[in-house]
Structures are given as structure tokens and as C-alpha cells.
């Protein structure tokens, strides 16, 4: 059995087990909790493509995710199209956003890209707040169908969609890691000048990575309005997304496809469990501290404890 086949079969099996055990539970809350964790698997895997492999820090996860969420809302309002086309449209919009930001800033030092992504979220939020078509600061309501056969509830449907997206995101991360693109990005992270000198088309690879990273983040955000039934700018641009998108890969182990998955499952589950017991601010505060402590003391993340080499 080839490693590729083993990965996809393993992922499909894992997905099936997850799905069946949640169905046995038969509780909508479990689906929502699962969705919450899985969206972070997508988001963290997306961040890792640019941040983990190429070493370019994207601070704008919330901005890209919100772009995806609002793209889904716009598509629904304009054409009446539902979630699945919304996800594709979100990938397109957020991917173009990533491409544009990258194109304008990536010819310079990487830190300018980071700074640009940092303000991107603020500015997109300004645009959305001023845009009445999507509800402005009041927010937009999405009335979704009660259920979609053959699924028992809409929550289950959303969970399954996000499950598929999470597996795709991890698979894309893994494919990047094993491709020339991934090797080229790693060469860029280690030494961009030397990479260029040995024939790596650095700008093009970085643009591919920013586009892919943006598109996947948009995909992570597209189901958000359907998940909460209502979306306002404050929720869509929540700093929680930006910090988790960075913290999860770095804590799990950036630069490996499994790192963000581990980090996302771990941190998101913790946060999901903790919201019941402690305030959401304290919750996020702990994530911030974990990020700082991990980058300082364990720069290779949890996976770094288990293997000597990246």
C-alpha cells in the first residue's frame, strides 16, 4: 500500500469513526463542538502552508476567515446559493485577497507581508462595517434549511462538511510538504537568497503559498454564518481566530502537516471544554501565554519532542 493511499484510507476511516460515534451520541451540541475543533484544523493547516514551510507569518487569519464568511453571505444574498457553492466562492475571494496582499508586499522583506496582514483584518472590518448589503455593524442573519437529507440535522450536515474540509486541508498540507513546492518553501524559509541562487523561483512559490493559505482560510470561514445563524463583524473578525491560527501550528509543530492538526485538536478541545468553566477572555489569555511559552521554550512544538529532525 502506498503512503498516499494509507493516508487517505486512514483519514476516511477516522472520519467514519468520528461520524458514527457522534451519531450514536445524537446530540447537536456534540456536532457543534466537533465543528468548532475542525474549523481550527482547517485554519491552522492553512496558516502552516505559508508560516510553517516558508516561514512567512500571516497575522490576518481573522481577516481571511471573515472574507470567506462574508463571501458566502454575499453569494447567498445575490444568487440564493447555499453552503457548498459558498465555500468555493469563499476560496476564490480569500485566495485572491492572499494573492493581492502577497503580490504587493512579498518582493520586500517577509516582515512587511506580516505587517500588511496585520492591518488587513482591521481594514476589511472597516469595509464590512460600512457595507449595508451584508448588514453593516448590525450583522447578517442566515436562515438555513432545517435539515438536509440524508443527515439527521443541519448540525450534523455542517459537521460532516467541516470534517471533509479538515481532511482536505490536512491532505493539502501533506501534499505540499511532499512536493517540490514544499521543498522550495522550506529552502526559502532557511535561506531565501541561496534558494533564489540555486534556481528556486522564490516569488512565485511564495505567491502560490499565500494564495493557497488565503483560500483555505476563506474555506474555514465560509460555513461560519451557517453555523451561528447570524454573523456580525465583531464575531467574524474575532482576534481568537488570528491568535489560534498562529498558536495551533506553532504549538503542534510548524512545518509538518501533522503539527497544525495536533495543535488544533488539542487547543480547540481545551478551549471548547474551558468555555463551560471559565470566561472566554481568560480562555484566550491562556492561549496567548501558551503561544509565548511554546515559541520561547519549544520552538519545534509538540512534534519536536518526538523527533530529532524536522
Amino acid at each position, binding site marked *: 500500500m502506498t503512503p498516499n493511499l494509507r493516508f487517505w484510507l486512514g483519514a476516511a476511516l477516522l472520519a467514519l469513526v468520528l461520524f458514527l460515534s457522534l451519531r450514536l451520541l445524537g446530540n447537536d451540541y456534540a456536532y457543534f463542538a466537533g465543528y468548532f475543533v475542525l474549523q481550527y484544523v482547517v485554519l491552522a493547516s492553512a496558516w502552516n502552508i505559508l*508560516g510553517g514551510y516558508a*516561514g512567512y*507569518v500571516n*497575522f490576518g487569519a481573522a481577516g481571511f476567515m471573515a472574507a470567506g464568511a462574508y463571501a458566502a453571505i454575499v453569494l447567498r444574498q445575490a444568487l440564493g446559493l447555499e453552503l457548498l457553492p459558498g465555500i468555493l466562492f469563499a476560496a476564490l475571494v480569500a485566495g485572491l485577497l492572499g494573492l493581492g*496582499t502577497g503580490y*504587493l*508586499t512579498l518582493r*520586500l522583506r*517577509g*516582515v*512587511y507581508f*506580516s*505587517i*500588511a496582514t*496585520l*492591518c*488587513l483584518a*482591521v*481594514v476589511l*472590518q*472597516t*469595509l464590512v*462595517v*460600512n457595507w449595508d448589503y451584508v448588514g453593516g455593524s448590525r450583522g447578517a442573519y442566515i436562515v438555513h434549511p432545517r435539515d438536509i437529507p440524508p443527515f439527521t440535522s443541519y448540525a450534523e450536515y455542517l459537521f460532516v462538511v467541516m470534517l471533509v474540509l479538515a481532511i482536505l486541508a490536512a491532505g493539502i498540507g501533506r501534499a505540499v510538504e511532499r512536493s517540490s513546492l514544499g521543498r522550495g518553501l522550506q529552502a526559502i*524559509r532557511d535561506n531565501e537568497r541561496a534558494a533564489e541562487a540555486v534556481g528556486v523561483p522564490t516569488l512565485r512559490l511564495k505567491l502560490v503559498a499565500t494564495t493557497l493559505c488565503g483560500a483555505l482560510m476563506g474555506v474555514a470561514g465560509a460555513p461560519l454564518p451557517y453555523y451561528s445563524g447570524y454573523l456580525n463583524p465583531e464575531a467574524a473578525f474575532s*482576534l481568537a481566530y488570528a*491568535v489560534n491560527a*498562529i*498558536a495551533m501550528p*506553532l504549538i503542534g509543530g*510548524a512545518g509538518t502537516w501533522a503539527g497544525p492538526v495536533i495543535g488544533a485538536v488539542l487547543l480547540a478541545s481545551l478551549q471548547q471544554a474551558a468555555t463551560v468553566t471559565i*470566561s472566554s*477572555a*481568560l480562555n*484566550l*489569555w491562556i*492561549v*496567548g*501565554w501558551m*503561544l*509565548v511559552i511554546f*515559541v*520561547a*521554550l519549544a*520552538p519545534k512544538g509538540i512534534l519536536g519532542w518526538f523527533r530529532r529532525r524536522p
Partner: protein
Amino acid sequence: MDPDLVLLLNGIVSGLLLGGLYAAAASGLAVAFGMLDIVNIAHPALMVTGAFTVVVLGTWLGLDPLLVAVLQAPLFYLLGTGIYSAYHHFFEKRGEEALQGLAFFFGVMFIIEVGLVMVFGPEQHFLDPSYAYTTWRLGEIDLPLRMLVPALFAMACIGALFLFLHRSFVGLAIAAVAQDADALRLMAIDPVRIKRFAFGISIALASMAGGALVVVQPVEPSSGQVFIGRIFAICIMGGMASLPGCVMAALLFGVVENVTATFYGPSWSPAVAFGWLLLVLAFRPQGLFGKAA
């Protein structure tokens, strides 16, 4: 006079005053980012922290916010040296400032912001000085003291910093460390000590800018967010390490943003920051007032 012209003139003047506040916020970053090459994205968050301590101490002691800002600056200097020591130990020394160092400052920013929410709540806090509602008038032009005093305060701080950097031995050493750390070693000066000192100054400036911010507007824990784009844009436009360039860029920026707000509504002004930043990065990355690389 034509009312539109009056509006424009007033927009420009209050933009200049607003630019004074931006200059205060950006000058500290010009030291950290421009001279020391430390991408401190937590700078605005530290400024807002300074603003909150000004509100707390000023209310408690019954003193003017700007006076409190000066008095508390040494504490922020110490905080800055502490942050730099950690940054140097964990990232700069290991050569990992790019990815991990950026993530570190992002984490610090986040911890500060959420920490402020936990202590003070998400709502706005203010401390009005006695002159908050006084406005001087020059013909048709309004000069609200709430804007004028912080702008003058900012210019005084930056002037002092400028003299310090250009006249004192330590100041010259900071300029030298920006150019070539090895040259300093030959002069038996420890570049790490110089950088720690300079970063402390940078954070002290952030806290003083926080004092100016309190006078201009009420503050909330997330106030720093809109400043990130602004002050990095200003710093880059100003040519990174140049204080005069930074002040010029800040004033220009204040005017453009304020005139935009006057004619198109204030909710659009944050978009100006990003637009400018992208344009500068795309077409003049060496800054508006910088020399060609």
C-alpha cells in the same frame, strides 16, 4: 470664507494635531523597528497599557494625564528592558527572530489586550484634564486644547529623543548599533546592552504616547489595533530610522486621515492606513522621505 474651505482648513489643522499624536506613537517604533530591527507589533498594545495606567494613576492621584505619563515612563522603560531581555535570550541569540520572534510579539500583544479586558472590562475609560473642553480660535480655525496640548507634548518628547540620539554618547551608540553591531564591539561597547537600553526608551515613549492618547480620546483595550497599521505605515513612510522623517510622515498621515474623515465619514479612516501602507510598500519601500536603497 467658503464653508467647504473652512471645513478643509479645519480638517488640515486638526489633522496636523492628530498627526502629533501619531508621531508620538510612531517615534518609539522608529527606535525599535527602524533602528534595532525589532518588529515590535506589541508597541500599540503597550501604548494602550500606558494609557490605562495613566487613567488609573491620574484618577487616584488627581494629576494631569500628561504629567502622570512622564512620571510613569521609568516603569515602562524597565518593562521594555525586561521584554527585550526575554526577546534577546529566546530569539535574537538563537537567530530565530523572523518567525518565532514575530509570533512572540504577537503573543505579547494578545496577552496585553486580553489582560486589559479582564482587568478593566471591554468598555471605554477616560480621564479628562482641566482643559479638555477649551478651544482656542484663530480666525475661522479651531484649536481644541484636547488636541493641541498632546501634540505639543508629543513634539517635546520627540525633540528630547532627537537631541538625546544625536548629542549623547549612548544615543550615538544606538545609531551605531543600527548600522553595525560589530563595530561597537570593537569599541568595547556591548551591543546587547545598548539595544536593551534603546528598547526600554522605545517602550517608555509608547507609554507617553499613551498619556497623549488619553487626552485626545477615551481608551479601550482594543484601541491599539487601529494603531498597528497607522504607526507601521508611518514608520516605513518616514524611512524607518529617521525621527524627522517619522514626524513628517505622521503629520501628513494625520492630515490625510482627518480630511478623509471630514468629507467621507470617520468610519472610513482606518482604511486609509492600510491603503497608504500598501501603496508605500508597493511603490516606495524605502519610505517617502528615505533615500533610495
